[in-house]
């Protein structure tokens, strides 16, 4: 009985992972095709998609929910990058090229802010609450 449930879980994981790769490819392609994304931003989006698809899609939860989260994550990434690149352009105009160097150096770090935040929010949506709520049962 336990063995059957394990096989079922495994099959579901593989199916979600396979479909996730397919959905991820479509989302990434659409984002890169329809939006103007710099090469560094595209690299960060791909890192996010890779981690999201390989680590979150095999988890329990509805496939649609995971796909929507992946799509929203990509949109957040694009918006975040566009806002920062506009901010950088404006600052470079006033402060000169020195700021551009700072921006290029800190860009991946800034990208991690949305990646890590979105990652934790996504997992909190998917998790089934259990265990502690502030106290340890004895």
């Amino acid at each position: 009985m336990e063995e059957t449930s394990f096989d079922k879980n495994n099959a579901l994981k593989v199916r979600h992972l396979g479909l996730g790769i397919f959905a991820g490819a479509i989302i990434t392609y659409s984002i890169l095709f329809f939006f103007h994304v710099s090469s560094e931003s595209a690299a960060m989006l791909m890192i996010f998609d890779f981690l999201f698809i390989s680590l979150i899609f095999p988890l329990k939860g509805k496939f649609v929910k995971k796909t929507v989260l992946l799509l929203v994550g990509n949109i957040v990434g694009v918006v975040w990058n566009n806002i920062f690149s506009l901010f950088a352009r404006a600052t470079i105009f006033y402060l000169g090229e020195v700021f551009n160097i700072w921006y290029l150096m800190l860009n991946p770090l800034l990208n991690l802010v949305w990646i890590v935040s979105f990652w934790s929010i996504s997992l909190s949506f998917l998790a089934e609450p259990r265990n502690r709520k502030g106290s340890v049962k004895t």
Partner: protein
Amino acid sequence: MIVEILETLFIVLTVLMMAYLIRHYVFTLTVINHAHKRKKIATMENTTIQPTISILIPARNEEKVIGRILQRMMELTYPKNKMQVIVIDDGSTDDTGKIIGEYAKTCGYIQAIHRKQKDGGQGKASALNTGLRHAKGEIVFCFDADYYPQPDILEKLVKEFIDPKVGAVQGRIAVLNEPQNLVTRLVALERIGGYRVDQQARDCLRLVTQFAGTVGGFRRSLLEFLGGWDESILAEDTDLTLRAYLAGYEIRYVNDAECYEEAVESWKAYRKQRYRWAKGHMQCAFKHSLKVIKSSNLRLREKVDGLLLLNVYFMPVWIVFSWIISVPLFFLKSSQWFSMLWTSIPISLYSFVGNFAPFFEVGIGAYLDGRTRAQWLTPLLILTFLYNIPICTKALADLFISKLFRKNDNHWAKTSHSGNGNSYIMN
């Protein structure tokens, strides 16, 4: 010429960081794949071994918490006629000795060892060695004074000793006072990454599972063969882990065997504790790295994992170093593309490996534990990373200075406990 040297250094450091990143990614994947699997081990009903056990509890000025764990020792479900609890009062100046004495009077299997004030305070390893000399059980367990184990923890842990290759076993550490403040919440997240994912994956992949110095047990015969705890090393647990593996034994991790700790409550206490861990780990790296490479008892994957484990506390220092190198490279390299790539890699990677458990690992661990709101604090783990940079750098600098001047400056900075964890225990 300078550019080439910088580039080579940078590549070496980046490869190191990538190695840690890949290791943690593999750990996370492994735990996801094992989430629904149950370990195929005998249940308690058909377990034939129920060895005699000695539990060592070192305590120095722990009057606020010692009563809690001793009370818990009386509530453990393991047969009392097979249990010996040895509490080592390590020269306490408060009421710890008195409390231990009272418990020893009322409970036959609790034994108190009082060290004089001039002998005490030499570190946990020294206290544990004193306790080991009085231990009679086949398995020697260790618990810190501020810990609070599940009542059936010993049954869960002891099963693993069915396998004769298993020299030691480690249970899971969770944070008791997690809701107290930001520091305790972040420590709890680190613990989730470290135990729910890291230790679990190492156990599944048969790599170097770490004995954490508490919530775990060793075969007494092995401990005596190894000569007990090394008192000259600040991370006596990591040292023992490596010595056990080098002797051809394995350590198992049991995720179900939970024990709650009172985590450090302030950034100052966090600094003191991590400094000790960092310096101790670095001492172990110098002591064992070559032995691990040469060992004939370890498989290749154990060697690789052992080396990565030993050197983990150097990483915050190397990451900063690589970032410093990348800045001149950014200017000196002619190709913009190259410069951008060079600069972006270490900055990105620090976020992955910075907290010794990258964000995706902590997140998956919290998910598997069914933690929802705890997830939201994951981005703030950057604070602990930033804090670990000066801590690890100072530990490395101090170690070099002490080696240079041949000074043995191994002062054991004890973590003090407030007893606030009591309010989180629900009867």
